């Protein structure tokens, strides 16, 4: 071909959504000139959970293997959660030119970022699987809870991500505020330590929403069942968050371009 020819849409077969193509290319570009690519993240996470897990197990006088498994499950979930929220809070400002000059929509950007972080989560998952194999597997009851727990975790993360992205576009304080707040929350949420260590003070952790978000997915992954309270809170809050995220998005997704 040397000249353009009139073209019309082809018959509808399965078509890759734009956000999926954008996410896939972002992953490829990020690790293009690296030998191990995203597996560097796996290596870094593995080193962190093994060494820090061992130290914490000693400090807290816990069995090393079960503590390392507990920390690895919580930490890879937390990495995903905090990356989604941090990225979301500045997402539309960072992609202002794309939104202003192309057919890219806010939802495409949200899905692209969520898929990218999901890809990183998938690369960290083998660490957890190896540790499960070493510790001798999980009980059937907790295995059955892994999928529903992960679905609640992912759905609430995406809903929160949407809310943070919209508020981050409107208020410049949000992108500045989110990373330091997440740092503090990481330390005060039972991720590197167990809830039981707080003894009487543990009751206050039930007021920490991030405890429930992490626990609903992590507890089945380490062989226990999330408490009824956590399951109840997460089932309810996921529905409320999804409704709120949808409302905020539907109301603002078109006009947010005026805020950037």
């Amino acid at each position, binding site marked *: 071909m*040397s000249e353009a020819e009139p073209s019309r849409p082809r018959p509808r077969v399965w078509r890759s959504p734009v956000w999926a193509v954008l996410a896939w290319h972002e992953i490829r570009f990020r690790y293009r000139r690296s030998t191990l690519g995203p597996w560097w993240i796996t290596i870094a996470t593995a080193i962190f959970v093994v060494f820090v897990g061992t130290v914490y197990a000693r400090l807290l006088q816990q069995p090393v293997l079960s503590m390392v498994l507990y920390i690895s499950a919580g930490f890879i979930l937390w990495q995903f959660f905090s990356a989604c929220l941090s990225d979301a809070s500045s997402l539309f400002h960072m992609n202002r*030119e794309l939104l202003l000059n192309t057919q890219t929509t806010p939802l495409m950007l949200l899905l692209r970022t969520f898929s990218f972080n999901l890809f990183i989560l998938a690369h960290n998952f083998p660490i957890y699987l190896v540790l499960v194999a070493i510790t001798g597997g999980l009980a059937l009851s907790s295995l059955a809870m892994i999928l529903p727990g992960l679905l609640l975790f992912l759905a609430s993360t995406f809903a929160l991500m949407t809310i943070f992205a919209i508020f981050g576009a409107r*208020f410049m304080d949000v992108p500045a505020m989110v990373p330091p707040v997440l740092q503090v929350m990481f330390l005060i949420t039972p991720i590197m330590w167990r809830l039981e260590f707080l003894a009487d003070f543990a009751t206050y952790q039930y007021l920490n929403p991030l405890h429930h978000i992490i626990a609903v997915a992590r507890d089945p992954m380490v062989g226990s069942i999330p408490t009824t309270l956590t399951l109840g809170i997460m089932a309810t809050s996921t529905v409320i968050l999804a409704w709120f995220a949808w409302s905020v998005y539907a109301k603002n997704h078109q006009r947010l371009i005026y805020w950037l």
Partner: protein
Amino acid sequence: MAEPHIELKDLTIRFKRRTSAQRSLKKSAINAVSVARSRRAAAEAEGYSLALDSVSLEFKKGDRVGIVGPNGAGKSTLLRAIAGIYPPVSGSLSVVGRRAVVFNPMLAMHAEATGREALRLIALVSGLDDHDITAKMDEMIEFTELASVIDQPIHTYSAGMKMRIAFAACTTYIPDIIIIDEGIGVADDRFQEKAARQMMTWLDGASIVVLASHDMNLVRAFCSELVEIEEGRVVSRRPIEDP
């Protein structure tokens, strides 16, 4: 299927002149609970700049329209409104047909991308479908005359080579409606004639073309009608007598 068509009725776009205080979470929270909020909010609400003021236009199949006007007249805002990027603050917009939006195609060109990937990404964010891009990929590569280096990273390309990639990605597939800001250039002299032919075939193939530019020669070359805009209002719409 309905014919491609664009209709703007009393379309108004305005931008709020934002101060840093208005984008502050703290100030917004204080205003929300403050007794004095209504007076202050009302005063702030007056700080708008009108980018498009009750614009009514209709473009039908066969229309090739050049949007002209001085800097800040509202040309790009009008294109972005038609592209669906700026929603109307008041009035209405109706667009029937597949749109291709060509404002700044180089934006999607990631430095780590190969020429082939850049072709796909530029076409994708211009509004084309991934499936259609795959079908047209070989033709795009052939047009660029960069087949031997198409899988090399873009950061090894010269500026002229990058412009060829952007040009091919934008002009290979013909949509119903083309919305284009300031045309698409190719730096390479040898390539100019071929690019001009391709551009003409691309624009001729679309049902409606809306082109905004400062360059009257560009507008005369590709358009048959002129819409003049000043301070967000349509001043005149007339045929170009000497295309």
